[in-house]
């Protein structure tokens, strides 16, 4: 019998984890596994948040993609030209054709600052920065270092974005950083969001909005950034509102990877891949699956989501290859540490149906949910080790499975005292 060919597009969190889990599951005599990525730099993306504050550096958070893949996985360092779904083939930019029996799309999302008028014009990387790219995060570090007075505006242009709590965390950490530097009184911090509150989900939004107020960070809601004027230091909303800034930290628009648009039937208008929210199979064709930031799912674009999805996806790829029914196993589970400064963090845990609630994770004795604590901050720091050594290699984590735990959650109102 011919060997099964599995092609994984993307060697980031989802692609690496999936390829490694599949390699453990199928012997080399059963399946060939290929991973394609345009470069050999695997970025631990949660670490980007800390780079502008000098709490982490690029050499700590970037490692070779190749080295995160198990033996017996073939890595192709090439740009993807297109996927031909009808013919079950991937075309690479050097003309190589990779035929597949199963395709897994894990190419994440792409920053599109050029889609906002003026954003990459005057002032880009001088007084307008994003920490969502390694280079941007590094340049912002130098800018923050010299920021002693004036107005810092944090703006997310529009959803969806990776790690929806990260811009809030940036604002919290900026407050802490400026206080430590002794210049907080001479600076103003503004958080401008297109949402109608600090966050998308009501209970967490109230709690996080309370934290912004406590820290003296102005919250501007329903602000849809239409234009950036870097020369004059103005962020202009589509409704005509203007926000003056001395330093703008933007989270640009996100879209899917460029090849998705060149691949007939694969993606939607923004380049994200329509995907079944429970099985992770795509409606494009039964042998095409997707996970992580690349999908159009109504879940956070976050590593925890990708991790929980990977377990369901690998099971379903195995079932598909065996001709069995797929498991509707993914419930939208997400779990995020939210860094709030001063060596503290809070944690949120939620899924498609249940918004983030207070309580403890994963059981009544565990990490506090929706409440600041040092334990959560230590958890966030420890997570980087777990990421490289347990998550990416595809080892099973004790206690934390894909389904959202409910044992430690309270459905009562949040006390913000």
């Amino acid at each position: 019998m011919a060997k099964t060919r599995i092609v994984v597009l993307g060697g980031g969190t989802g692609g690496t984890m999936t390829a490694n889990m599949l390699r453990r599951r199928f012997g080399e005599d059963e399946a060939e596994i290929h991973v394609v990525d345009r470069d050999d730099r695997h970025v631990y993306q949660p670490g980007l948040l800390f780079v502008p504050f000098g709490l982490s550096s690029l050499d700590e958070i970037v490692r070779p993609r190749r080295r995160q893949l198990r033996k017996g996985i073939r890595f192709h360092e090439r740009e993807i030209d297109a996927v031909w779904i009808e013919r079950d083939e991937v075309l690479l930019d050097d003309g190589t054709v990779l035929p597949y029996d199963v395709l897994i799309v894990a190419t994440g999302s792409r920053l599109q600052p050029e889609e906002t008028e003026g954003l990459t014009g005057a002032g880009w990387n001088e007084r307008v920065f994003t920490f969502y790219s390694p280079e941007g995060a590094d340049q912002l570090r130098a800018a923050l270092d010299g920021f002693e007075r004036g107005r810092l505006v944090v703006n997310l242009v529009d959803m969806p974005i990776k790690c929806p709590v990260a811009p809030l965390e940036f604002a919290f950490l900026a407050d802490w950083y400026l206080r430590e530097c002794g210049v907080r009184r001479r600076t103003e911090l503004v958080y401008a969001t297109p949402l109608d509150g600090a966050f998308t989900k009501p209970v967490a939004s109230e709690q996080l909005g309370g934290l912004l107020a406590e820290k003296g960070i102005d919250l501007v809601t329903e602000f849809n950034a239409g234009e950036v004027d870097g020369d004059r230091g103005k962020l202009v909303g589509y409704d005509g509102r203007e926000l003056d800034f001395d330093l703008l930290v933007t989270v640009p628009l996100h879209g899917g990877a460029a090849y998705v648009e060149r691949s007939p039937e694969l993606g939607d208008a923004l380049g994200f891949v329509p995907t079944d929210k429970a099985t992770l199979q795509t409606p494009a064709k039964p042998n095409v699956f997707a996970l992580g930031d690349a999908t159009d799912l109504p879940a956070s674009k976050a590593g925890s989501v990708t991790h929980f999805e990977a377990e369901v996806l690998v099971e379903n790829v195995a079932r598909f290859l065996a001709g069995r029914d797929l498991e509707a196993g993914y419930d939208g589970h997400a779990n995020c540490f939210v860094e709030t400064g001063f060596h503290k963090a809070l944690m949120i845990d939620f899924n498609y149906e249940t918004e983030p609630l207070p309580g403890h994770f994963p059981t009544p004795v565990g990490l506090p949910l929706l409440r600041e604590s040092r334990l959560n901050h230590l958890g966030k720091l420890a997570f980087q080790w777990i990421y490289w050594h347990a998550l990416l290699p595809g080892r099973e984590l004790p206690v934390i499975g894909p389904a959202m735990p409910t044992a430690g959650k309270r459905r009562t109102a949040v006390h913000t005292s």
Partner: protein
Amino acid sequence: MSTTMIPESVQVDAEGFLTDPRQWSEDLAEQIARENGVPDLTERHWLVVRFMRERYLSTGNAPSIRALGKESGVPVKELYQLFPKGPAKLAAKIGGIPKPKGCI
């Protein structure tokens, strides 16, 4: 003040979005528009409203403002001129479909 009111038989939620898209009509759309600061629905308004409504009825989801800008043929800037403040929300309200959910 407009004298025409939305009939009581039409069920709306706390923010004025129809809870049952089947109760919608073009006359109702014009009334909702007037009450929300859009005195006249031009062809461009209708193009957007119909696009939103058709998309919701066929997929169960209303498009986001960005998808609307890319797929309806009306650029985002113009969408804000047609439906000041929140184009996706307002077009959904006028089109008689539920409030678009913010994604996360």
